[in-house]
Structures are given as structure tokens and as C-alpha cells.
């Protein structure tokens, strides 16, 4: 029936291509059959088939579905040719020698190969074997032969690849459609005589170009293994116990997974944990080095400490020696003055100058001391002592030497000598005690300081515990300009507008800035009524000097004139400067007076060659505008002087000129 229908239908123009890998497996089978002889009947057609010889197995194994004794490759065949374990010795055809390798070489895969079977093949050959490279002809011949063989394979593969291409779908389907006239058979079921003939249109079915291929890869069975070749190396030696020990790897024991809940001992866990497998070895010389460094540091500290202590002791000795010398000088001067001891030549020049100055000062002070009284002399004594201690250079020494001389003279005039000496001795002792105490404190180190001084090596927590810690002082970035705080307008308020080039947010000393350098008002100017009155009274004319002091310029004169206009002290011999100088609005620039050697004559009147106005002007300049106010208060011209004259007190000014003070500058 089906055959009749196929004959009735027209032949199909298109066929499905169903690809299969059966060709490959058949190729393998053909290969196997070529190697092993005829093929057994295929699977499913083995009814009544009984394999009788090795050729019936096709190189493969036994057929399990055939229930009869089977001996593929004659294995285990009790009646076969290869029954026993011994095999016959083959003999070489030419030499007649036994060929033990005949079994390996004859037939099978190794027949066309070079197989190394003899002992000579494992013996070393150094030299004697020619190793010439192949000739060019051989290379070309091999190339041509191989190329042809490979080309054939590649062509076949590429042709097969072309066949695998997807069938192209015809673009115009209507051109491909065909009409077929069908005539139904009268015997067919459901025959309709009215529709005896049908016209059928055959159209190509649309094809999905992305449809996966319909064929299926089938894994070809692996072919039979190759025939073995003799192994040319010794079997692996037995593993020694040491090797086994070395290769023993303990089983991994997880600290996280323990599905069976075994109790794993701690030492096993520790052994499984790889962290302790590596041992960090530190060189022991590190410890030695650290120890040596510590020792060296301690030694160095000790040396530095000893050196500092020695230095301190030297300084103290020097100080004491100087003090003793000074004391001796003073005592000698006193004795000389009283005439107990005849004048002796003094060995140092400085002592000679000091003695001369002391004599001069005592002579001049004799008249002035009457006004100041004994209280002034007593008050002057400590100041003189302080000045004597502080003066180290010859200039200071000169000035200081004059003061005790003067004080001593005053004390002598008004009181017994023992009284002053004992006072001085007590003071000296007290001062010595104080110095020694200071020295002891310094030597005992920082510990002797009070808690306010603070030990720097204390920890912060210690300080807090001891109550030593105040609020930490702000340093570095923590320090802020407090002027930036509490500004209502924020940052923008401090420095003015953007156009203003203000480096500072607020002026420095807003209150006093107008009165720092400027002379007050127009003192001595045209509008000053006091000045005009004084001029009218002719008081100013008394002090008007026709000599301007050099170096300062015209500006200094105004200040001097102003000073002259005020009531002057009794001891002020002469003063005043040029009245014609214009007003000054800046600090006086002072140039040191020439031609006045330091430590020259102590008396201004005696020093006729010098310029008294220069000294006065300089004193005024140093004091500045405000320094002039102290003139009247002190009752004399007292200008500030450098050095140790701060403790001089008010008793020093009577009857003295300014020269002493300025020589020290």
C-alpha cells in the first residue's frame, strides 16, 4: 500500500539532510576490519552466530549475549595454539640467532615501526654515530609527499565542511511552488466521488535559519590500544621508608567543618593549622646590639652629666674669685682713703681707673651728700653691690666701682664704719647662701623644682592623676587667632572689604598709637601759650644754646628746648638746645658722639673739652618724649642708663652730671 502511494506521488524535489556520525564509526570499523580480518555480523543480526576463531571477534572482546565459550585473541583457549605460558623461540632468518623480540615486532602496530628491543639500544654512544643533517633533496621529497597527503585530507575536510552548510531558502517562494493533481483511489477509506480529483499546491516549508542542527554527535568508540613496545628503563625502585616519611602529608582537619562531630584533639588542630609551621627566627645579635646601645647611651649620659657639673663648678669658682678680688679692691680703696695704708701701686689698669674714679666721685659727692642724708646712703649700698656683682666687663666695672666708693664715702660721713661693714657682711653671706642653694638645686636636677615647673617626662595620665595638668596649651593647628572668634560678621568682618588691602584685622594699639612718637600737641610751637609766656619771661633765653648737637639734627632741639622750659633740678648745670629746630614727628635717630672716650673724667665740669650738650641731647633722645616727664619728678636730670644702674635709687642723682650714666652706654 505504501509502495503504491509512493509510486503515485511525484518524486520529491527536496529532501531533509539528516547528518550522522555513522560514517566516522564505519570508518573506524573499516580500519578495525582491515587490521583484524572479517567483521562479525552487526548487532541485532547475530542469531545463530557462534564465534569460532579469533577472527570472529573483529579485534574486540567477547559477545556477552552469545552463550557459548568464547576466546577472543585465543585468550584462555584450552585447545588453542597458545596454550602454555612458554612460547616458541623465533629464529632470525639470516643469522639463525634467536629473535626474542619477534613477538613484538611481527605483525600488529609495530610492524612498520622502529622498535628498540635490544640492550644495545640503552647503551650510551658518545661519538661513532653519524649525525649529518638530511640533504636538501630529502627535505624537498618529504615536503612534497607530506604536502600532498595533507592537501588531500584538507580538501576532503573542506568539502565536507561545504556540505554541512545550511540549505539556502529560496527567495521567491512562488517560483518554487508546484501544482500536483491527485486522483483518489476508489478503494480508499472516505472516498468521495465528488472530489475525485484534487489539485495540490506544493510549497517549500519555511525554514528557521537559527534552528539548531538536527544531527547528533555520537562518540565513536575508542579503537583498540596500540601494541606495546619494550620499556627501556628500569622499573621504579622501591620507595624507602625515609621517602615515605618525607611524603607523608597529614590529613586536613578543618576548624569549621566537622560533619560527624568528632572530638578533634587540640594538638591535632594545631598541627593542621598551618600558621605555626613557619618559624620566625630572629638573629640573636639584635638583642646584643640593643644591649650595647643601651650601655653606650648610659655612658654618654653619665659623661655629659659629669662634664656639665665640672663646668658649673668652674664657673662658680671663677665667680667667687672675682668677688673676692673685688672685695679686696674695695677694702684697699677704703684703707687708702682713710690713710691707714699707704698708696700702693695697683697691678691692673682697671683697678687703677676704678680707684681714680672712686676718688673723684667721693670728692664730688661730699657736697651733694648733705642733701640726701644717711637714708640715701644706706639705700644706695645694696644697689651698688648688685651693680658690682653684675658687671663683668671693664666698662661696667668702672661704673660700678664708682658707686660703692661713693656709697662708702657717704656712709663714712654719717655713721660708724663697723655698722656698714657688718651689714655688708650679712648681705654677702646671705647672697652666698642663696647662690649655693641655687647651685644645689641645679645639681639635683629637675626633681628639685616645684610641681609648677613640671617634670616633662611625666605621662599625661600621670599629670592628671597628680593634679598637675592644667588645660593643655594649644599648639600647632590647635592654636587659633582668638580675634577671629566672636566676630558677629564671621570671617568677612575682620579684614574689611575685598578692596581694602588689610593685612591685619585690627590696628595695633588703637588707643596709644597717636601718642607714641609724636610730640604732644604743638609744644613750643606758635600756639603754645606756656611757651610764649616762658619766652616773654625770658626764662627760656637762659637755657638757649647756640650750639646744636651733632648727629641728631634739628629735630632733637625741640625736645631739648621743651625740657629746658620745665623746672630743672638744682644739680643741673646747664642745658638746652637750639630753639629754631622744627617739630619732630618720628623717633630721634641717634649717632654716638665722637671724641668722648668711654670712662673719661667723671665730672662734667672737669671735662671741658667734651660737649655737654651732646650728652644731654643723647639722654633726652634715649628717654624719648616721655622720658622728659621724669626730669621734674626726680629733681634733677636723670636719664635711663643701661647696665646695672636700675637699683640706683633716687639718692644717686644729687649733684651729679649725666656723664656717668652715658659713659656706660
Amino acid at each position, binding site marked *: 500500500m505504501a509502495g503504491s502511494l509512493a509510486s503515485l506521488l511525484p518524486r520529491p524535489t527536496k529532501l531533509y539532510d539528516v547528518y550522522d556520525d555513522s560514517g566516522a564509526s564505519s570508518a573506524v570499523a573499516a580500519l578495525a576490519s582491515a587490521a583484524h580480518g572479517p567483521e562479525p555480523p552487526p548487532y541485532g543480526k547475530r542469531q545463530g552466530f557462534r564465534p569460532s576463531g579469533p577472527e570472529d571477534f573483529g579485534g574486540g572482546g567477547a559477545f556477552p549475549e552469545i552463550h557459548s565459550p568464547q576466546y577472543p585473541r585465543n585468550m584462555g583457549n584450552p585447545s588453542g595454539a597458545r596454550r602454555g605460558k612458554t612460547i616458541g623461540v623465533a629464529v632470525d632468518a639470516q643469522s639463525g640467532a*634467536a629473535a626474542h623480540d619477534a613477538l613484538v615486532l611481527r605483525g600488529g*602496530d609495530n610492524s612498520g*615501526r*622502529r*622498535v*628498540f628491543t635490544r*640492550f*644495545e*639500544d*640503552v*647503551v*650510551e*654512544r*658518545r*661519538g661513532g*654515530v653519524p*649525525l*649529518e*643533517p*638530511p*640533504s*636538501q633533496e*630529502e*627535505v624537498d621529497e*618529504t*615536503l612534497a*609527499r*607530506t*604536502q600532498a*597527503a*595533507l592537501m588531500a*585530507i*584538507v580538501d576532503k*575536510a*573542506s568539502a565536507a*565542511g561545504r556540505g554541512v552548510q545550511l540549505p539556502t531558502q529560496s527567495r521567491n517562494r512562488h517560483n518554487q511552488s508546484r501544482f500536483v493533481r491527485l486522483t483518489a483511489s476508489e478503494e480508499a477509506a472516505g472516498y468521495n466521488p465528488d472530489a475525485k480529483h484534487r489539485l495540490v499546491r506544493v510549497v517549500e516549508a519555511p525554514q528557521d535559519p537559527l534552528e539548531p542542527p538536527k544531527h547528533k554527535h555520537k562518540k565513536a568508540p575508542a579503537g583498540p590500544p*596500540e601494541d606495546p*613496545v*619494550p*620499556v*627501556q*628503563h*628500569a622499573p*621504579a625502585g622501591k620507595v624507602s621508608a625515609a621517602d615515605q616519611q618525607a611524603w607523608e602529608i597529614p590529613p586536613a582537619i578543618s576548624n569549621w567543618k566537622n560533619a560527624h562531630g568528632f572530638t578533634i584533639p587540640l594538638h591535632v588542630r594545631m598541627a593542621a593549622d598551618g600558621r605555626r609551621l613557619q618559624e620566625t627566627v630572629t638573629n640573636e645579635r639584635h638583642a646584643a646590639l640593643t644591649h650595647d646601645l643601651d650601655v653606650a647611651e648610659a655612658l654618654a649620659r653619665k659623661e655629659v652629666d659629669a662634664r656639665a657639673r665640672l663646668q658649673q663648678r668652674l664657673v662658680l669658682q671663677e665667680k667667687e674669685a672675682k668677688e673676692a678680688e673685688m672685695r679686696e679692691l674695695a677694702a684697699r680703696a677704703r684703707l687708702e682713703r682713710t690713710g691707714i695704708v699707704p698708696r700702693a701701686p695697683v697691678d691692673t689698669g682697671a683697678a687703677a681707673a676704678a680707684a681714680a674714679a672712686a676718688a673723684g666721685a667721693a670728692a664730688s659727692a661730699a657736697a651733694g651728700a648733705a642733701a640726701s642724708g644717711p637714708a640715701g646712703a644706706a639705700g644706695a649700698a645694696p644697689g651698688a653691690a648688685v651693680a658690682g656683682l653684675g658687671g663683668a666687663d671693664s666698662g661696667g666695672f668702672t661704673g660700678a666701682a664708682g658707686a660703692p666708693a661713693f656709697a662708702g664715702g657717704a656712709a663714712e660721713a654719717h655713721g660708724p664704719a663697723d655698722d656698714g661693714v657688718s651689714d655688708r657682711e650679712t648681705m654677702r653671706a646671705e647672697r652666698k647662701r642663696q647662690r649655693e642653694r641655687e647651685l644645689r638645686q641645679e645639681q639635683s636636677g629637675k626633681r628639685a623644682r616645684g610641681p609648677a615647673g613640671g617634670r616633662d617626662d611625666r605621662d599625661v595620665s600621670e599629670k592628671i592623676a597628680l593634679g598637675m595638668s592644667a588645660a593643655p596649651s594649644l599648639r600647632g593647628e590647635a592654636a587659633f587667632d582668638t580675634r577671629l572668634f566672636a566676630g558677629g560678621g564671621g570671617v568677612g568682618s575682620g579684614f574689611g572689604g575685598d578692596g581694602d588691602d588689610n593685612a591685619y584685622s585690627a590696628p595695633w594699639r588703637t588707643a596709644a598709637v597717636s601718642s607714641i612718637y609724636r610730640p604732644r600737641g604743638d609744644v613750643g610751637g606758635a600756639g603754645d601759650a606756656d611757651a610764649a609766656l616762658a619766652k616773654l619771661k625770658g626764662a627760656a633765653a637762659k637755657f638757649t644754646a647756640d650750639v646744636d648737637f651733632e648727629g641728631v639734627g634739628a629735630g632733637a632741639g625741640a625736645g631739648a628746648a621743651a625740657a629746658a622750659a620745665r623746672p630743672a633740678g638744682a644739680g643741673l648745670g646747664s642745658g638746652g638746645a637750639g630753639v629754631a629746630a622744627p617739630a619732630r614727628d618720628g623717633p630721634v635717630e641717634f649717632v654716638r658722639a665722637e671724641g668722648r672716650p668711654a670712662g673719661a673724667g667723671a665730672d662734667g665740669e672737669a671735662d671741658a673739652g667734651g660737649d655737654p650738650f651732646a650728652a644731654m641731647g643723647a639722654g633726652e633722645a634715649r628717654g624719648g618724649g616721655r622720658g622728659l616727664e621724669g626730669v621734674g619728678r626726680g629733681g634733677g636730670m636723670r636719664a635711663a642708663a643701661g647696665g646695672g644702674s636700675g637699683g640706683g635709687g633716687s639718692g644717686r642723682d644729687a649733684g651729679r652730671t649725666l656723664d656717668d650714666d652715658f659713659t656706660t652706654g
Partner: protein
Amino acid sequence: MRHAAALAEAAQSSSRVSAARRRPRQLVAPSWHAPWKLQRVISGLGGWVRCVAVDPSNEFFVTGSADRNVTVWDLATGERKLTLTGHISTVRGAVLSPRHPYLFTAGEDKKVLCWDLEHNKVIRHYHGHLSGVYSLAMHPTLDVLMSGGRDAVCRVWDMRTRSEVHVLSGHTNAVASIITQPTDPQVITGSMDSTVRLWDLAAGKSMGVLTHHQRAVRALARGSGPGAAGSGGEHSFVSGAADGLRKWHASSGQFLFSMRAHEAMVHSLACNSDGVLFSGADDGGYRMWDVATGHCFQAGKAAVQPGSLDSEAAIYCAAFDMTGTRLITGGADKTVRVWREDPSATPESHPVDMDAYRAEVRRAEEAGAV
């Protein structure tokens, strides 16, 4: 009776053996080679350097490393010129074609790629390996490519059509090394099943199996060096395994002699046209041999790059440049090293140690090829 015959046969063979051992030794003096010095260490790669190939024009060389990159370096300056990314696993093989502007690479990602070095792009994939590819070689005269890998086969690819011409199957473990030569056997593979196989390329069949090695054969080198066919040199090849190096006749596969060297796996072998053979091992040790006589004239152990583990000293690949005066090696410490001959060395300053050579030969012969 049979037993007696066997005994006699054994005695005869043993006399042959002793004759072979007692053969008067006519040792050929090894030719002198200058010792090699490390010239440059190039670091900067992100992984083990697994393969190196030198440009036939001798201008650059190519390394493939475990950071999945193929890097092109300037041979003269050692500067990196290019990094090619395309592999997704360690690059294990690189070959530069002397006849095409192509670079072929293979990696553990089963890929064998063909790069066009004029555009620096992959232009062909050779698809078919079932597992990682461990070695790659190109035929010296034919346009075919050989790749072998963990699927224990060596696949022969037609370069142009990308079709698999042959599957050279027979090894039972990964194919770790491949060399090719213009005459039969045109393909020689070394495998981790500790055998070396010689292949007939036209038929796609094995021509022979060399079973002398006991350990995986991870390195092979042609004894004639990198020169083309007929350029001179020896027609031999050397195979390297953890149990030593062995030299073979390149046509017949006859065993010539063994060189006992490293106590570790030999990963790399390279031979130049002067007959200098380099072998690099897994423990970082390297040796220089006179390939004609098997005399080791230099041995050492290169220090690893600082920061590497002790176990990362292996020398994985080695290649001489086209002139044979530079040796480029790559190792597990992620560096590429360039070596050159010591220019100040003379035969007087570094004489051939004949005593050591004789002792070595005697030891090898007494031990036999075991």
C-alpha cells in the same frame, strides 16, 4: 636442554654487554664555550612566564604568562612593546611564523589562536582541544601547526583553513612538548606518560615510541639549533625529564647518551647553532651543555626576584635569539631574564674541565641507561 640453551644465550649476551662496556673510550674533547652571564632581568609580568618565542627578524620576542597576557618585548632594550589580551587562562605556547606576519599562541583555556601582528588582532581560532593546551609548534616548511595538551593528543592544524588535519593519539597522558623538523619524523612529542613519540605526519601515525625516560618528558629541543633545514649542526634532539636529559638521533630515534643534571623537573631546553644547550629546572637550577659531547660547562642557580617564594624559582621556558648570542628565559618568579656570553672569557680563563668530563662519562656508562 632448553634451559641450558637459554643460559648460553644469556652468557653470550652478557659478553656482548661487557664488550660494549669495555670498549676503548675515545672521548671527543668538548668544544669550548664561553660561560653565560645574566644580562637583564625584566619584571613586570603578573604571573609565571610559561613560554617565550623570538621574532625571526630578531627585533622582538614574545612571552606568554599566567596572567593571561601575551607580551611583546623589544629584544634590544627589553622594553614592553605590546600586550595582547585574548586568552582567558595561562598562555602555554607561543610561536612566531617566519613566513607570515602571524603569532600563534595556545593556552590552558583550550584555545589555539592566530594573531595578525599587523593589526594585533586574533584572526583565527583553532577549535578542537578537549582540554588545556600545553605546547605548540609550527612545521618548518609546511603551513601546519601542532598543538598538544592535556587531552593526550597532538592535533595538527591546517593554518589557513583551521581544519584539524590529524589527531596524533597514542600518548596516555598530557603532551607537554612538541618539536618539528622537515624530515621524518616530522613531529616529535614528549608526554607526561614519560614517553617520547615520533610521528609520521603524512599518515598521521606513530613511527616509534622511546621509553627510556622514567619521568614526564616536559622539554624537547632540536640539537641543530634554531637554524633552518640544511643549515648545519647535528641531526639530533634532546629530551628533558626529571631523571635527566637524553640525546637521540633525530631520524631513527636511536638513543645516544644521557646527561644527568638536575634533581628536579626539567621544564625548558633550548639549543643554539653553536651547539650550546640550555636546560632549566623546576628548582631554578640551570645548566649549559656542549650538546655534541654532553659536557656541562656551566651550572648554577639563578636567584629569584625579591618577594618570590622559595618554590617560585622554576625556569619554565627558554629560547635563544636568532643569532644565538642571547638567551631569553622566563620563570615562576614572574621575570624574563636575558643572558649573554661573558665577553671577557677566554679558553685560558675558563678552560674545559676534562677530568670532570671524563668522570661524568665514566659514571654515566657504568650506571647504564637506567
